[in-house]
């Protein structure tokens, strides 16, 4: 029988390889997940810096800290960075790291495509971020409404970077989504039925479908904009009879599912954290799965609630209002189930648990102000005001970011083999929690008092001064909180307490292997007989008298084991994918190909063709070399 004491030994290297090239050429889902994590955290800091500059400008009436033009670039890049370069890739870091471990697989279905996704993300992120250093960053808001973004109103290169950059980032998300759908459908360990999958994997599964169905509409909207800007088409040319709402519809058909793309992974993470630290199974597992799927479906039917103010008519407004109210039901179900999970549990208030509980509370506030917007008459008062800014920061910061921090504190020991410092973590949590509420709660008031969003300054005496000053102080608290987190994150990699394979007493497969996991993940692919295999292993009678939790009652074929030893893939005879830089090279080709378009702005047709065709040649050559070389 297995010994359950965590082995008190120093962390073994996660991989036998090291050095820069090993990272460029890696196809290991865990290393790619780590790359996503570091890169997304870097972009999170950039986005946060932009937020701090925005709040400094708004601290007092008529401040001249930045110009109106710079301010436009700052709020556009803050939104674009946080949505596409920070929160989505932070979720992707967890998809990469956790999905194969949670379903008992050795890697994703297409390891090289996975590397490709990461490199496209990194290069696309750099492409869209660099222009801010030269004051030519995108400046039309993160949802880039056309015709505002057409040549007529935005003639500089700013929007070019945005259109091309987002198009490139879309390729990354789509490629990753095909990969994870295939992985979850096809690489589950024996016995890992769909209804035994950990909730994080389930929510990720829903998100991948949202990605593959929601990204094409924005791809098409961006193609139209790109063609309008570079080739003189008329998609958004109002003078030629174009519909000024075309962009808004195409964008929000993507944009609203995107909201769930941002929040569902965080829901999944806290659904792992809450049972672990309550020592109880997730309350209403089945209903949690169904409500996640329901949110995914309904998420495609609510997009026009972003457009109540454009005059769609009473029928359309009513339908979208109804759908929006409906989506609160599965979301509310989740909140009650999390609370019921903690009810009568042996709750341990660790840092990840605190972040998870904060998500429940803060997301509920954001969710309730969301339901307020679902009523068109109320929305007409609130739309484009700071009330909306308060709402979506409560769901995105109070929801997604809190959930992701819960995930980082929870899984850091698995990823690095060491704990994040609990004391610094507590400081981070409380500063973060207070700072968040101090920043965003006053915005409800300034919004209802009529302060429009996206203005670069305002006059005194409108009742907004105090609320803006408080929000700015709150943002500075968040800056300090984040600094504490970064210090903790970097320091704990070498100084943190040794964690061992299962430091939290969790229940799912990823905790049955050493921390950090060996490159092959599982020396033997496990056979799963219930939703909480590690709890079954420790105390076979733990859930007697409760429901079966997916337990079929059929014992596994051989004695249970918790893997505590680290071998090499070679000694175990497990074939591993070769390291290869071909996906990175192909990704570079893709970005070079798209960036050729930029030269058309200056009528450098020959240069544009050379760069585009050169990039296309790299793309095709890289792809060819990749497809004709063996995986392992």
């Amino acid at each position, binding site marked *: 029988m297995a010994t359950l004491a965590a082995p008190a030994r120093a962390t073994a290297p996660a991989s036998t390889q090291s050095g820069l090239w090993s990272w460029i050429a890696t196809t290991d889902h865990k290393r790619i997940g780590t790359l996503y994590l570091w890169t997304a955290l870097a972009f999170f800091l950039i986005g946060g810096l932009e937020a701090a500059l925005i709040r400094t400008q708004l601290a007092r009436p008529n401040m001249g800290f930045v110009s109106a033009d710079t301010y436009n670039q700052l709020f556009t890049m803050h939104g674009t960075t946080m949505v596409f370069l920070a929160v989505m890739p932070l979720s992707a870091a967890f998809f990469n790291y956790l999905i194969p471990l949670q379903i008992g697989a050795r890697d994703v279905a297409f390891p090289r495509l996975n590397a490709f996704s990461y490199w496209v993300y990194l290069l696309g992120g750099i492409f869209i971020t660099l222009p801010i250093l030269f004051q030519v960053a995108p400046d039309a808001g993160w949802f880039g409404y056309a015709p505002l973004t057409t040549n007529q109103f935005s003639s500089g290169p700013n929007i070019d970077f945005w259109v091309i950059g987002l198009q490139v980032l879309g390729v990354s998300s789509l490629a990753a989504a095909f990969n994870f759908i295939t992985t979850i459908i096809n690489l589950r360990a024996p016995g890992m039925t769909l209804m035994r999958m950990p909730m994080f994997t389930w929510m990720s599964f829903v998100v991948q479908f949202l990605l593959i169905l929601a990204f094409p509409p924005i791809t098409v909207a961006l193609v139209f904009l790109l063609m309008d800007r570079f080739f003189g088409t008329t998609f958004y040319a109002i003078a030629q009879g*174009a519909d000024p709402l075309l962009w808004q519809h195409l964008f929000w058909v993507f944009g609203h599912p995107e909201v769930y793309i941002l929040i569902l992974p965080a829901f999944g993470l806290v659904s792992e954290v809450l049972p672990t630290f309550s020592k109880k199974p997730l309350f209403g597992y089945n209903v949690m799965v169904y409500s996640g799927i329901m949110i995914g479906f309904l998420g495609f039917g609510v997009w026009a609630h972003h457009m109540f103010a454009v005059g769609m008519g009473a029928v359309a407004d009513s339908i979208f209002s109804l759908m929006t109210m409906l989506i609160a039901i599965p979301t509310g179900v989740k909140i009650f189930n999390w609370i019921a999970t903690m009810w009568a549990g042996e709750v341990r208030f660790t840092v990840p648990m605190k972040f998870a509980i904060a998500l429940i509370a803060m997301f509920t506030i954001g969710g309730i102000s969301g339901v307020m917007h679902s009523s068109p008459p109320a929305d007409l008062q609130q739309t484009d005001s700071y009330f909306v800014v308060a709402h979506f920061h409560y769901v995105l910061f109070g929801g997604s970011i809190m959930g992701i921090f819960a995930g980082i504190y929870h899984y850091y020991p698995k990823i690095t083999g060491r704990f994040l410092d609990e004391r610094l973590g507590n400081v981070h949590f409380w500063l973060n929690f207070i700072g968040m509420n101090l920043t965003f709660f006053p915005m409800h008031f300034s919004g209802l008092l009529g302060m429009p969003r996206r203005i670069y300054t305002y006059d005194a005496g409108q009742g907004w001064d105090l609320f803006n000053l408080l929000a700015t102080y709150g943002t500075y608290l968040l800056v300090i909180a984040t600094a504490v987190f970064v210090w903790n994150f970097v320091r704990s990699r070498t100084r943190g307490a040794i964690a061992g394979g299962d430091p939290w007493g969790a229940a799912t497969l990823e905790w049955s292997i050493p921390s950090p996991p060996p490159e092959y993940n599982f020396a033997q692919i496990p056979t799963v007989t219930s939703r909480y295999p590690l709890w079954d292993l420790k105390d076979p009678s733990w859930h007697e008298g409760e429901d079966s939790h997916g337990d079929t009652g059929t014992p596994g074929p051989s004695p249970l084991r918790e893997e505590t030893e680290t071998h090499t893939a070679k000694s175990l005879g497990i074939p591993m994918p070769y390291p290869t830089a071909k996906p990175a090279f192909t990704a570079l080709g893709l970005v070079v190909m798209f960036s050729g378009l930029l030269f058309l702005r200056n009528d450098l047709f020959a240069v544009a063709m050379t760069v585009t065709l050169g990039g296309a040649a790299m793309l095709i050559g890289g792809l060819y070399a990749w497809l004709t070389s063996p995986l392992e």
Partner: protein
Amino acid sequence: MASHAIAGHDDGHAHTHHTTTGLDNRKIAIWAFIGSECMLFASLISTYLIYKGKSLVGPYPHTEYTDASGKVFPAILDIPVTSASTFVLLMSSLAMVLALQAVQLKGTPLPANAGWWTRAQRSSQLWLGMTALLGASFLGFQAYEFTAFVREGLTIKTNLFGSTFFTLTGFHGAHVTVGVLWLMSLLWIDRTRGLGPQDELVVDIAALYWHFVDVVWIVIFTLIYLIQ
């Protein structure tokens, strides 16, 4: 029970990648890809339909247009020619089916009295080549159509019809182009090392893509050309 929650499981021969569904990963991925492509074409086609009849100037698809100077532009869509190209593309799908069948049948002995058709059915090179050729002919028709339209005064900049029409059919044409290149790569592999039943999946995935591109064209042909 439940004490045997995580049992060691020997996944047998390490090199046979066992999958949960028994299907190859690539087969699942191509279906996910096709699902995503449906949304892409749905967005393009919706935009075309939303902008239908909204162009402020001609040429128009189904009706005559007279500009300020009195110049007359006839209805621009040439339905007989496009019907022919549609037929060509549909036949390419038939050839694709036969190509897959030929790959599957490779290696099974021919009956002694096999006629020319039975023999032809075994030639994967014939049918792969035929599919690629028919696809390329469709592209030829499209190139002819685009050139004719531009000559008659409709470019991608002219009006909403021009922008939506060229973008939608251009996207479809790009998909056909990728398909033709894909088929030619398969043909090349077939000529160099020969495709057999073990390669069925590879051909099957190309076929799924090809049939999808065909189905999209049926929708486009119906909505854009046939319905006035």
